[in-house]
């Protein structure tokens, strides 16, 4: 017979907690922390893997200084910011709309929710390949439907701005359902009594949404925005398959640029500096979003 024991903050309890945490900490240390620290170390060195017998040579902050002088990095960053600035709000707006449409408990809603997951479970490489074929100017189904509607065929991937829009569109198609599922879970967590009370007070559906639902799910929305924003700066596969960063440099994103420096040029030092800056930027962005979320939670209490 199990006798429940009240957990106290004794030394042995603390030791037991650490004993359970230790394997995870060990694995994370080996797989994440050590490579990260090695990357930071390399970022202060000049090191090119394609030179036989090369060894890291300390050069201080020169790699970091080079970041500011790199025009292609600025272009990639600009593209990535534009991509994130377009894709994330669209995914949020569409995802929220979808979630509101699916929030009743009917069988049809549950079935549609399952179907909605299909784009999300397709690998980004597969999605990129699929859309590359669909967006083909001559043989693609998108232009076929457009011409049926009397519109001219469009070279989606050949025009710089349209190519960026195409990348945004593919990302929105793939991850809006993910946003919708998360938001739907948050909506379903709102107590029915709160909604009933609002309706009894004479609030219109829009007012219920604006003043009851939205504030109550806003902490979740912040997390969703944070996740999608970070993912937007990690987009690689879709771009690689769909446009390879082209036409020209119109869809070259930060991860593609880092890949080029590291894997194509084998410029390990500079790539490490890029990666370190990237991690710091994402860490700061996450901290801001989490801080915002915590303030919202406090306010709602």
């Amino acid at each position: 017979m199990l006798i429940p024991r009240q957990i106290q903050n004794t030394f042995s309890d603390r030791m037991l907690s650490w004993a359970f945490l230790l394997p995870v900490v060990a694995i994370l240390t080996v797989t994440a922390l050590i490579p990260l620290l090695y990357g930071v170390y390399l970022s202060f060195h000049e090191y090119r893997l394609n030179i036989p017998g090369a060894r890291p040579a300390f050069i201080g902050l020169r790699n970091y200084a080079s970041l500011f002088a790199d025009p292609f990095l600025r272009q990639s960053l600009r593209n990535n910011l534009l991509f994130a600035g377009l894709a994330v709000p669209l995914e949020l707006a569409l995802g929220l709309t979808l979630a509101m449409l699916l929030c009743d408990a009917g069988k049809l809603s549950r079935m549609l929710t399952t179907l909605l997951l299909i784009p999300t479970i397709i690998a980004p490489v597969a999605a990129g390949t699929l859309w590359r074929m669909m967006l083909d100017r001559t043989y693609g189904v998108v232009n076929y439907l457009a011409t049926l509607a009397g519109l001219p065929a469009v070279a989606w991937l050949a025009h710089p701005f349209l190519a960026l829009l195409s990348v945004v569109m593919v990302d929105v198609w793939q991850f809006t359902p993910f946003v919708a599922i998360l938001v739907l879970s948050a909506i379903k967590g709102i107590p029915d009594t709160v909604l009933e009370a609002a309706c009894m007070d004479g609030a219109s559906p829009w007012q219920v949404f604006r003043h009851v639902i939205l504030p109550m799910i806003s902490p979740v929305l912040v997390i969703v925005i944070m996740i999608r924003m970070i993912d937007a700066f990690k987009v690689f596969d879709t771009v690689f398959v769909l446009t390879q960063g082209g036409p020209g440099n119109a869809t070259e994103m930060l991860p593609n640029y880092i890949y080029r420096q590291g894997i194509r040029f084998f410029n390990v030092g500079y790539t490490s500096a890029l990666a370190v800056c990237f991690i710091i930027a994402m860490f700061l962005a996450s901290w801001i979003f989490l801080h915002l979320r915590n303030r919202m939670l406090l306010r709602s209490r």
Partner: protein
Amino acid sequence: MLVVMTALAVCGFSKSEPLFNGRDFAGWRVEPGSWAIEPDGVMRADEDRIIRTEERFGRFALDLDLKFKKGAKAAPEPEATPVGRPVPPPAGSPASAPAASEPASPETARKHEGKTITVLFMSSVYADAARETARRFEAATGCKAEVVDFPYVTLHEKELLDIATDSGTYDVISIACQWDGEFAPFMADLAPLAERDQYDLSDFNENVFKNAGKWAGKTMGLPHANTPYVMAYRTDLVPEFPATWEQYLEICKKLTDKSRGFYGTSVPGLKEQLNGVWMIRHWSMGGRWADENWNLTIDSPETRRSLEHLKQTLEYADPAAPAWGLQESIAAFLQGNAAFCEAWPTLGVTLDGDNPQKSKIVGKWALHEFPHDKTGKTMLSAWDVGIPRGAKNQGAAWDFVRMYVSAESQLKFFEKFAILSPRKSFWRQDVVKNSKSAPMEPALDRAVVWWRISAGTVCETAVRDAVASYATGQWDLDKAVSYMKTEFQKALAANPPEPGIKNAGL
């Protein structure tokens, strides 16, 4: 496919003897389960399988009776692969191709029994040829060859990552010649092996071998495929091929009819291909990247003229061209939607141009060198196949390399995959001389490749970015040229050429 064989007979100079007794496989070496004997006494294989005699023959004539079942699409391909020292051709006979690449002596046949090597080629006909070779290689040596392939866009990093770390994942790799300088330190020198086995290297075209396989006194690979960059064009629409780039533009302009979806030219617009079509313009107009001492000359009137010309050319190409890879560009030409095609013809046009199932321009196309303009220089695409120094099975790898580049294999690859060989004897074969690929031979001696030094990859990437960004209107001319110059300077400073290496190319 069902093809059956009946009696086989070998005729020597004075007698003939049957090879097959109609009952069993006595005298034959067969993979279990691959061939069977029918009740009516014929040998049958359901798929493309090898069967070989136990006995070895000198000069012989082979009588083969074949029985085709309905639906069979091919016949067996009898192969005579000499083992041992090559038999010199009889006096008065046409000059024979150099000796085959089989293991050096009967005693060492199947010396690699039970081993496995991994070979890496570009995803294309080259990998298909490697698979075909792997089958023969296994039958001859007992060694299994696993063929891995990657598309060009990722091949460089896959190969360099393996060889720079000496991981030994691959025993044989096919290298694009422009990577030779970068890869050479990590590759085995094949010259001592060729000398040891008395392997004749003199049959390789000197210009090709100099640019693909040899680097700084080392033979890091043997050339196995080469194509001087030429164009395909419609013989029914272009009676006289243009001699200058301006004439070329005029013809493109005249023939373009956007309302019909017909364009003067078909251009592969993806970055890694567009830079190639720019380079040809640049070099044929007299441009150079640097002088022989690596002093940059990229900022020149020729650079600007060639960039402007390329941008104008795109006005007479399909609007989707900037997003096209090679296959889309070739497909547009084969579907009859363009008068010229600037994509590498050996990767589709020569193979399928006269195939009515894949082409709407059967009999209406030909190949020609790009407009000669000032210098007539064109780009050389050449691949050499070599052995990483970290390869685990260097002996088997060397035998595979020799088989892949042998004269017999190379002719077979041409017939089956339209791959052009760098062997001089290859171009003397009637089947090649009378083919549509024949115009490419003279260009082989004038074709050049861009920088093969370690900094070459960075410089070529800078060219890609600048050319594609300018051609699609994102950068102006000054920015594109200035970017190339700056990136070249940085690349040469970070990774200078080895002492003594001159810029022999452009």
